């Protein structure tokens, strides 16, 4: 049974026509199921527990990267497949998984190409795409027998399961594969985007250093550093990061980037 979880922001009236089109398409494809709309009064943990008790084998996150991030933190303990219907502007995870936005995603759910992918775990927080750390000279990445430290404060340090720096028009190959049982610590230097407006408004990062690992400890010699998981949750150092190989069964599109 399919269980569709709508994020809170979809309660906005501007999304009503789109949600109507999505529901109609799901009905056409014969994959409609139970729908649960999140509100500030409904805890996601309760909703998901309820879904599994009612026999859901596929939970579909309807929303953006933030929705997926919230669901991921609860999903590894449940034996269900995750599907995504991306809506809104922030849909990097869905793009990497090759899932088109809005009602087009319904066909991807229906085609049901599934992959078992790795998840990352930072202390007790699960993440699907990456951890982002503001580069500090005091940051130390301890891999047991050796330690890595960035020497520049302008760099971006990320721990990646997906290559989140990779854009659609990027010419370089992805440095991450979410199916290899390995995470990558990436130190990226910033360079200004080409073009007049790019120079003023946008910074782009390209990976300078890549360290594949299975377990790493992030610490800071001075105060606690904030680390952002999947662009949503903040964790403070020291943080132990490890990979959980093939932990998540997820529906992907044929244009996935791995």
């Amino acid at each position, binding site marked *: 049974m399919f269980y569709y979880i709508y994020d809170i922001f979809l309660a906005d009236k501007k999304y009503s026509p789109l949600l109507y089109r999505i529901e109609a398409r799901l009905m056409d494809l014969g994959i409609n199921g139970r729908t649960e709309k999140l509100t500030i009064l409904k805890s996601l943990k309760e909703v998901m527990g309820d879904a599994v008790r009612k026999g859901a084998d596929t939970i579909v996150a309807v929303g953006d990267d933030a929705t997926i991030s919230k669901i991921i933190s609860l999903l590894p303990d449940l034996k269900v497949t995750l599907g995504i219907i991306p809506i809104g502007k922030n849909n990097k995870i869905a793009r990497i998984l090759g899932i088109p936005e809005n009602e087009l995603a319904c066909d991807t759910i229906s085609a049901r190409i599934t992959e078992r992918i790795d998840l990352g775990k930072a202390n007790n927080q699960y993440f699907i795409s990456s951890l982002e750390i503001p580069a500090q000279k005091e940051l130390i990445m301890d891999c047991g*027998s*050796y*330690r*890595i*430290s*960035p*020497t*520049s404060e302008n*760099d971006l340090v990320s721990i990646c399961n997906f290559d989140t720096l990779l854009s659609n028009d990027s010419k370089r190959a992805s*440095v991450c*594969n979410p199916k*290899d049982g*390995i995470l990558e610590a990436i*130190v990226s*230097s910033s360079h200004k985007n080409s073009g007049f407006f790019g120079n003023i408004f946008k910074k782009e990062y390209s*990976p*300078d*250093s*890549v*360290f*594949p690992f299975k377990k790493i400890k992030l610490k800071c010699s001075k105060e606690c550093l904030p680390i952002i998981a999947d662009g949503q949750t903040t964790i403070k150092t020291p943080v132990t990061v490890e990979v959980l190989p093939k932990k998540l069964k997820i529906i992907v599109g044929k244009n996935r980037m791995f």
Partner: protein
Amino acid sequence: MAIFNNYDQRKNDHETETIIGPSVKVDGNFKAEGNVTVEGTVHGSLKTNHDLKIGPNAKIKAEVEANNLFLSGEIRGNVKVINKAQLASSAQILGNLETKKLSVEEGAIINGKCTMLSEVAAIENKEAKKNQK
């Protein structure tokens, strides 16, 4: 740099690749499972069973061990190469070098003992490494 064009063609053979960039410092005993490219700083030891490329601006103060070495920077420490060491004109080794095959461009510097490993010694070295695992 013909040596590095050759390296780029071969590096796709292995999936995991470590890149130690110019803005990173590694301290301790670094051991990689795949190819390694160094443009930054390494102190301690640096080992890989695959290819090791050291760029012109890298600062290596370590014992180095690799299957193939493509060197255009400086290494301060002893170097052991199981198969082939290729030294570009800007390469410097301040330590002893052990390798089976050696290619040196004009201008490269080796300040230390250079030992050419025979086929048998190279195999023995490889087997000893396997046994250690």
